[in-house]
Structure formats: structure tokens, C-alpha cells
């Protein structure tokens, strides 16, 4: 971990390129995650939320180091549990802009069940999964998205388990915004982040982000400059509110398409809980906490 960057004073009110960056990232030179960070900065500069209201959260992994590099309130939680942690933050404080970053292991393996429930509950937050098809931080073990045949330290003869299909998993989680992008495509990434952030609900973006250390070339098939194809979803043809056609896209052959697979406005848990609170408040005629307690104790007499 590098030393904290020299303190730079920033003023309340405007997000600047300098003011939003914190520590210099500790990632390996060439790691795809740098571009993910750069695109996030640019998106925040564009959206100009009050800086103190932005919160960047993560689990554990190379990608999950993200919060240290962003100058906002941040939380570096434990492996796989960033989504429930962020659920508490989002439901506890509706005034915040909650962002979660993490890897494929963090999100699809140890945290896989949490993804299903944060999605189903439609928690208001934006989650970016930096998928590198490998465990980076722990130095090259098989990840849930590693393709069959991938030789890792835990699969010296090549991975044999079928990989998770990220898009299918995200779609079936109940997430109300599901996008897919690639760390070599800054503009596309920014567009995805912006749309995800503007979506009111659980928005998740899978971003293919190469681990140059342990899985070099994993995504060449989607990089035009390396002879691959970066094919973007045509939203004239694909209705983003249609789950069946989103699932059909998810079944396309590698490297598949990029863009918004699914987006639908559904009530968020944030809204529904708030409605419950309001209902309860009306019923109790806005009684003070003390009055409420007194009434409860009176019923115990």
C-alpha cells in the first residue's frame, strides 16, 4: 500500500479530477482496473453529486481495493459481503449515493447468494463487478468465471467445472438494471455507469477487466485492436424491458454483446420500507418515541 497522497484541499460543492482521486492505485501496471477507476472518476465529474454524499464500498480482492483510490467516504469490508454491507448503508441513509466494487470471486462465489437477495430486494445502489476470470489478490486460483481448461494453481490440469454465466446470474437475481461493458472501452464504460447510476434500483454492471498478471489475454476476443469484436447491443432491436430476450442475449457465444441487457423500473426496497414507515406513522399519529414506548408498556400492565 502506498503512502497516503499529499493532502490536497478541496472545496465543498464541485467534484474535480484532482479532488476525487485519493491514493495512487496499488494495482499491477497494465491491470484493467485502472481504466475502471478512470471511467468512474469521469462519470462522477459529470454527475456532480455532493462529494460527501458519495460512498464507495467493497469486499476483498484486487478490485475491491477500489475505495482507497477514490476520495469519498469509503468502506473496505470483508470478502463476499459487500452487498449486504451496502444494503445496510443504502437502507439506513436514503440521501447517499452508494457504489459497490468487487471481483468475480467476491461477487459470484463467496458472495453469490447475497447477489441474489440484493437483486431480489431491489436495493438502491450501483454495483460494478470487475470480472477478470481469476482470483487476482490470492495469486491465480480458479474463479467461478474461469473458463473450462484454464490452468490455475488450483487447477493445474485445467479447470473442469462449468463457469458461471455472469449475465444469466445477474438477470435471474432480480436486478432491475443489468449491463455489461469492457475496461478497454472507456466511453462505453462511462455510458454504462451513468445509466446504471441514473437507474433507481439495484443496478449492476459486469465489466471485463483483464488481470495482466494471472490471466493475460483473457478478453482479447472482445478487443478489436487485438483482432476481436466489441459488439454493442442494438436497442432498436433489443427491448431492455424484455427478460426473455435479455436471457437470450446472455446465452450468446463468447464474447457476446455489450450494453444494457435489462432495465425495468420496479419499486425499490428503499421506497417500500419508507412507505411502511409512513403508514405506521399515520396510524400512530406521529407519536413521539417516548409516547410510543409508553403505550407499549401500558399494554404490558
Amino acid at each position, binding site marked *: *500500500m502506498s503512502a*497516503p497522497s499529499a*493532502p*490536497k*484541499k*478541496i*472545496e*465543498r460543492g464541485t467534484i474535480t479530477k484532482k*479532488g476525487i482521486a*485519493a*491514493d495512487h492505485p496499488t494495482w499491477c501496471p497494465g491491470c484493467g482496473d485502472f481504466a475502471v477507476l478512470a471511467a468512474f472518476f469521469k462519470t462522477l465529474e459529470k454527475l456532480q453529486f455532493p*462529494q*460527501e*454524499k*458519495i*460512498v464507495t464500498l467493497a469486499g476483498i480482492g484486487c478490485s475491491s481495493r477500489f475505495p*482507497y483510490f477514490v*476520495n*469519498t*467516504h*469509503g*468502506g*473496505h*469490508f*470483508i470478502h*463476499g*459481503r459487500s*452487498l*449486504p*454491507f*451496502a*444494503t*445496510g*448503508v*443504502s*437502507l*439506513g*441513509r436514503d*440521501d*447517499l449515493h452508494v457504489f459497490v466494487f468487487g471481483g468475480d470471486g467476491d461477487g459470484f462465489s463467496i458472495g453469490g*447468494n*447475497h447477489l*441474489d*437477495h440484493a437483486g431480489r430486494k431491489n436495493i438502491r445502489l450501483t454495483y460494478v463487478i470487475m470480472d477478470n476470470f481469476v482470483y487476482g489478490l490470492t495469486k491465480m486460483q480458479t474463479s467461478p468465471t474461469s473458463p473450462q481448461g484454464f490452468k490455475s494453481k488450483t487447477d493445474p490440469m485445467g479447470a473442469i467445472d462449468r463457469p458461471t454465466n455472469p449475465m444469466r446470474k445477474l438477470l435471474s437475481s432480480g436486478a432491475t438494471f443489468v449491463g455489461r461493458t469492457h475496461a478497454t472501452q472507456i466511453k462505453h464504460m462511462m455510458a454504462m455507469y451513468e445509466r446504471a447510476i441514473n437507474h433507481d434500483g439495484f443496478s449492476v454492471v459486469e465489466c471485463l477487466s483483464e488481470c495482466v498478471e494471472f490471466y493475460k489475454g483473457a478478453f482479447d476476443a472482445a478487443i478489436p485492436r487485438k483482432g476481436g469484436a466489441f459488439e454493442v447491443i442494438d436497442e432498436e432491436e433489443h427491448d431492455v424491458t424484455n427478460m426473455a430476450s435479455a436471457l437470450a442475449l446472455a446465452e450468446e457465444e463468447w464474447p457476446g454483446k455489450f450494453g444494457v441487457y435489462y432495465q425495468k423500473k420496479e419499486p425499490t426496497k428503499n421506497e417500500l*420500507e419508507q412507505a*411502511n*414507515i409512513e*403508514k*405506521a*406513522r399515520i*396510524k400512530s399519529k406521529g407519536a413521539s*418515541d*417516548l409516547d*410510543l*414506548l409508553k403505550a*407499549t*408498556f401500558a*399494554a*404490558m*400492565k
Partner: protein
Amino acid sequence: MSSDVSPSPPRSEELVHDAVIRLAGNSQDGIQSIGGFLARLAGRSAQEVMTYMTIPATISGGPSIFQVRMGSGEVLSAGDEADVLVAFYQHSYENHIDQLKDGGILLYDSDHVEPKEEDKKYLKVGVSIAALTVEALGGSAREKGKNLFTLGLLARIFRLDVEKLRGIFKDRFGGKSEDILRNANLAFDSGYSFPIDNVLDRYYSFQAPDESGPPQVTMDGNTAITLGLLTGGVRYGSGYPITPWSTIMEMLRAQLPKYGGLFVQAEDELAAVSIAIGFAYSGRLAITGSSGPGISLKQEALGWATMAEIPLVVINVQRGGPSTGLPTNVEQSDLLQAIYGSHGDCPRVVLAAQNVKDCFYTALEACKIAREYSVPVFVLSDMALASRIEAFDEPDLEALTVEPTLDLEDRPEGYKPYDLKRMTRHAPPGTWIEGGKFPQVTGLEHDETGHPSGNPEMHVKMMSKRRDKIKKLADSFPPSKIFGDQEGETLVVGWGSTWGPIRETVIRERSNGKAMGHLQIRHVNPLPNDLEAIFKRYENVVVVEMNDEGLYGYGQLATLLRAQTCNPAIRSLTKTDGLTFKIREIMKGVQEQTEQA
């Protein structure tokens, strides 16, 4: 009328100090609600009351008991033996007759129970309870209501205040259809008017209680914890269902919206603790809870809360372990888990509630400590406390209620969340930091600014910071209070729900002429500072707890106390039969332990 009662003339009235009534039947017989009515009646009559119940682990019924002890003086335990046994079935009779005092009353359903002829130790009163209830309610084939019929019988035997009972029915059933309240009264009346006088050799009548004190409230331990949390300012929480913790989360889910808060049912305990920590990180005092198995799942995240110095309240309503263990029995075997359960050196606070009233005050205290010391605080309760009902003086809510605030005050430039010279005060998101350097909150070791630091010296310093604040908490405890003899032969030490049986034992032994003291430890981590000096004043120190003696012959608290004080006079009395301690078990055990010494 079908009843095989042996007629004999009406009798005298016996003034009693307290009475133990054991109701034995199946779980669907509604005996819990008779117990509940009796407990509430006692509460409204300024009587002391304590209940004890077992419910079968299976949902489809099965044997169940409810025991009520009510009286005019201090009621400390649910009672070793019953004055009255109500048996609905043969199995109820067979399994519980040994718990009836010589000379007690066996009240049984004469259509289902055949007591042994030769049993002459008890007064046998057979009433065809089920059949008479059906008759009273207009011939419906359903026996529903036989609990209230039985309550009518008991009301007669004990000269209970019928008007107060009717008031309680009204509170309980009044909101439902009129039929329900009417049927309740019908069933009760027919029990009450049953000519039981013909067979009784005496009525019981309670000594008049002192009604001058504050009004009493009647509730079980889980309700008391819930109300303690609400009073202490908890507005957010998350959990996953497990017996016997679930009713706390059910109540919070229902109550919190009124207070502008919410409780999240999570997908598992890993998520539950993480959501609660998320609430806490966002600036809200939050709780999570479970029973042993779920607490195991929470441990990694709790380590994070200690490291990041985030306030949190964690409830463990203990049951028999390990694994799924004895899910509906009582045990105190999660003490060391509460103190040491996470990996690494992970100091946190552990409090143990000693009775239902104390469930309320302990939960309240946990909220205060979590906030002041920015640390996770465990509250240990158990299966016995969770479901038993007690009456206690209504708390002074005006003085105790904490209205939570969200602290988003600007922090000055150079703000250090982990200042080594100060208590950590978390700055939740939304807080502006002058100069614009925002804090990271992390499970990695960090420096004073919260920035990760692998510096060994910093690790040592931060470790001391996290440890020393817990020691500072111990410095703030009032001197430990010992009941009974302040020095001499034997000090009996306990923690948690063993309070009542230990206290009753000590009272009895002192009246037998023994020099005995009782110390119940409510703060189990950190322990009070004065224990070493206190223990030196006694020849024997016997620690009573409901867990296993372990590999080295000492229960969990006894192990800790021996380590802390190096006092060889400390002995251990443990048991793991899934039942609360009886007075005679403690008397005998303490006797044996002190003889060995």
C-alpha cells in the same frame, strides 16, 4: 355431571406466600395462554411472578408444559416442585407427578387420566375438563376453550380476582370478534362454577401484596430485550430466524417502522450482521442477533466491527449446543464464543442478563456502551429467559428513553478517526471533512487517519487502543454487589439466568445458618476489577453455570475467573441437562464442591 370426586365437607382457607402451578398437556391445548393470563394477573395485582415453559421442537404438537409461580414476596425461580399439577393426559400425569409436592393437588381430566389408586400423597381432583368445556360452549366437538375452563377451576382454588381476569380477557380478545370473548367467558365461568368445593380440603389465598409501588409490567425476556433496544435508541437491525431469537426480530420488524426505522430479514446470518454493520457505518445504532449457530456465522464480520471500531449490539439467545444441539432447551455454553469467537485478538464487550427485568436494562446498557465506546456489544440471554414471563416495576421511561441522532457535523481539517489519544468517533458518510480528505473505514490494520498500515509498531499501538478502551469500560463499573454474607465460608458466583435459583439457594442456606454470599456477574467482558479482592474474602468460591465442565473440570466462566484471579478456591458447578438449575441441585452441588476443597 361427570366427575369422580370423592365428596367431603368444605374446608378452611390457607393463606399462602406463593404457589407453583404446573400445567401439563400438549402444545395445542393453549396451556401457555393460561400461564400468560395468570402471569398478567399477578403483575396487575402487584404480585411477583415467574413462569417456565417447555415447548416441543416439533411444530405438530407434542407434550408441553407451562409452570407459573406467583406470590406476594420475591419470586426468584419457577419453583422446584409444584403445589398444583394440572394434567390433561395420561402422559402429562405420568411425566410430571414426581414434580408435585406431597400434599399438593393433582387436578386432572378424568376422561383422559387415570391416576394410580395407591397414590395417596396428593389430593386427587378429577374433572372431565374437555367434555365439560364442549358442553359449556354449546356442544361444538372442539375442545378449544378447555384452557379457560381450567383457569376457572384454578381461579376458584386460589380465590383469584375474577374481575381483573375478565379485564385481561377483554384486553386479549376484545379486539377480535365478540364471539371469541363471549366463548372465553363462558368456558371460564363454567370452570369457575364447577362444585370443586366438595372435594377440596382447603382454598388457597394469597397474602395481600403491597400495592403501593409503581405499576408492574408483565412480559417475557425476549420482549424485555426488544423494549430495551427500543428505549436505548436502536432503530435499525437485521437478522435471520432461529429459535429462540426469532421473536425479537419479529417484534422489531413490527415495531420499528413506527419509530421511523426498519428491520431487515436477511438471507442468512452472514448477511444479517453485514447489513447491521452497514446501518452502523451509515451512522445508525443497529442490532443483529441470533442463537449459537447463527452467531457462529456472524463472527468474521464482528471482527471487522472491532477492527473498524463500529458500534453494534449483538443479541445471543442461547440454546443447547453444539450444532443444532438441543434447540428448545436452555444452556449457557456460548460465553467463550461471545468473548473470543472471532479470529485474531478481537476485544469486545459481553453483558449477561440475569432475569426478565434485567433483559430490559441490559439491552439498554448495551446500546449506551456500543455508542460510547464504538465497539460491538454482546447481550447474552438464553432459552429460559426468552420465554418465561415475569412482572417487574415499570421502568422510568421519561428518564431512560434515548432519541437517536445522526451525527453529520462537519469534521475539522486533519480529522483523525482513529486518534490514539481519543475515543474513536466514527464519521458517517454525508459528513463533510474540512480540507476534503474523506476517511476509509477498513478491516485492514490502519493508522490514525484510517489509512491501511502494515507498520508493526502501528499494529501494536492500534491493538492497545482497541484493548484499552475495553479496560476503561471496566474502570467505569460500580463496585460489585454481593448479596448475603460479605465474607466467610462460601461465595456462589453465577452469570445470566442462574440468578434466581442461586439467590433462592443462598437465602435458604443462610437461614440454615451458613455464611454464604451471592455474586451474579452481569459484565462478563470486561469483568469487574474488584473480583480478585472479593474472592479472597471467602474460603470457597463456587461458580454455577449451565455448561460443560470441559477438559479441565471447569465451566466457561469458572475458567475465566481462575485465569483472571489465579485463585485456587474457585470451583465449578456445571450441568448440561437442558433444564434450569433447581434449588436442591445447587444446594447439593455447592455442598459437594466445598467439601472437596
